[in-house]
């Protein structure tokens, strides 16, 4: 831009003088930097769809890099689901044999556990936006010539991806709870997990995007995650519940992920009709039996709406 920067000699001495001074400023000693064989100045292009996609991709990649370097998180986030599945599942089996029609309780709660493990991880991923804010990195992204929505979308997709990767560990345990390793089933489970992970990350981002401190977020998350998990029917069939619980259950978004997951798994089991009816009754709205695809649509729709809200909040903040 400025080959001859001396423009206003009166008050504004030009760059040449400044740099002469700068080099002189160095108190000898170390050899000074010698300009390398010249590398062309780079150019930052105007914003375009392509640059936004690149931004989304790099935000996504960063989350994966961080996830890979955080082995501890990988291990600890598996503890809770495993506790529920094997400890609670085995323990309560002693009491519930009569009610499960000979089906192992672990098998029954397995689809629910698949969902909540994804949920826990996705929530943690969403918290990363608060970490970034607290440690300053968010600023680096916010001053870049990109849309803020690209940051949110990148983070949301990455959260979904990370949570699904974790989910694979639980998918691998299918055999331990008498669920067959049918490729179609495994693929279906993975797909549902991916979808749920996306929606929960969007939900988490929606909550997290305005929060400034990680402690407050942790508190809020605890307040939301456990009730959502307990009410969802991950641990019990959702028909014949007391009225109030029934209402809460139908409001809980997680319900609409747990139910299709359970249907999918149970379709691949050999069960008596009685057992199937008792354990996998399906979700109803005023007596209408929701089709699985409809439920999947609900989860996806909720995810998109919440992502939209998160983006809107992020845009209007600061």
């Amino acid at each position, binding site marked *: *831009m400025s080959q001859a*920067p001396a423009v206003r000699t009166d008050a504004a001495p030009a760059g040449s003088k400044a740099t002469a001074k700068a*080099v002189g400023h160095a108190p000898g000693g170390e050899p000074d930097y010698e300009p390398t064989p010249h*590398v062309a100045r780079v150019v930052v*292009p105007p914003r375009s769809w392509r640059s936004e996609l690149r931004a989304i991709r790099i935000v996504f990649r960063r989350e994966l890099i961080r996830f890979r370097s955080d082995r501890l998180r990988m291990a600890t986030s598996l503890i809770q689901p495993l506790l529920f599945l094997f400890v609670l599942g085995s323990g309560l089996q002693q009491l519930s044999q009569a009610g499960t029609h000979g089906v192992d309780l672990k098998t029954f709660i397995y689809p629910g556990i698949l969902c909540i493990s994804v949920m826990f991880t996705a929530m943690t991923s969403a918290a990363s936006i608060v970490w970034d804010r607290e440690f300053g990195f968010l600023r680096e992204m916010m001053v*870049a010539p990109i849309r803020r929505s690209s940051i949110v979308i990148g983070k949301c997709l990455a959260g979904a991806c990370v949570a699904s990767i974790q989910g694979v560990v639980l998918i691998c345990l299918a055999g331990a709870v008498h669920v067959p390793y049918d490729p179609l089933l495994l693929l279906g489970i993975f797909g549902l997990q991916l979808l749920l992970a996306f929606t929960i990350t969007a939900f988490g981002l929606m909550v997290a995007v305005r929060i400034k401190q990680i402690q407050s977020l942790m508190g809020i998350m605890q307040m939301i995650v456990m009730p959502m998990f307990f009410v969802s029917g991950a641990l019990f069939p959702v028909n014949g519940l007391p009225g109030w619980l029934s209402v809460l259950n139908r409001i809980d978004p997680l319900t609409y992920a747990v139910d299709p997951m359970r249907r999918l798994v149970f379709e691949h089991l050999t069960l008596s009709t009685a057992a199937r009816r008792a354990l996998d009754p399906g979700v109803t709205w005023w007596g209408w039996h929701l089709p699985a695809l409809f439920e999947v649509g609900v989860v996806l729709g909720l995810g998109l709406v919440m992502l939209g809200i998160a983006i809107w909040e992020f845009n209007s903040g600061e």
Partner: protein
Amino acid sequence: MDSTTPAIDVRGLRKSYGEIEAVRGVSFEVAPGEVFGFLGPNGAGKTTTINMLCTLARPTAGSALVAGHDVVAERDDVRRNIGLVFQDPTLDGYMTAEQNLRMHAELYGVASGLIPGRMRQVLEMVGLWERRKTQVMTFSGGMRRRLEIARGFLHSPRVLFLDEPTIGLDPQTRSSIWRYIGALQQTEQITIFMTTHYMDEAEFCDRIAIMDNGEIVTLDTPDALKAQIGADRVTIRTADNEAAVAALADRFALEAKLAEGAVTFYVASGEQFVPRLFGELGVPIDSINVSRPTLDDVFMAHTGSTIRDAEEAGGGVKDRNRMVVQAMSGGRW
């Protein structure tokens, strides 16, 4: 943008946060290739001004053009043309130096083919090429700063903003950072806009604006600012400092200040004044020191405190009022 367009052109810029007016109408121009320094006590409005120029805060009134683009209407164009090194670190400690730079290049849409060469260039410039595969969390404060500066340069900005780039670093690291900044600026001919607390760093600037209470109180080259003071600083230690202050006022009509067991005052042609002082003061003098005005004196003349005091009084708490009260109550003066 040709070479006659100012790199930064600010007119009547204001920013209020509710009742508080952080910036009260500042105007200035920065020429392309210039190194422009912003000085002022904590809470004077420096960072708020930088934030507005960087499109991170929206001005309440007034206008600002950076690299020829309006900071409100053409936010993206401004962002493409500026580099930023913030007061607080903004690196991802879990990523390596290289990954941090790569992320930046991608966010700024630098052509993929140019990234490796450019990354190597800036990393070599700040002496971190060997450490490129290391996680940033293991870096020392000085190394992190250097990496941030390299990152600020990575996309060849026209204007680089440095907000207290060397705060909290030891003197050796500070001087090496300035050496790197100087070398980078020389290679790319970019405009630098910086804030600092350190006088030696202010000397490095082509021009300096001193800001206080949200306004620019003076703006000129360091030499011109020092010449403005028009007087040398004389510091004497005497047997009876109180009496010396009174005598200076009585016999020479000079306003002197008592601080740290010494009497300080300003007088034109200090050397010639010394013989008269010995002859006519009437209080025995133990020692005397005459010095040319420094930027510290300039700063004191305009803001009523030395840079160091301003920093200590602020103590990181952005409470201008407290600091002003402290300066006025004259705890140290």
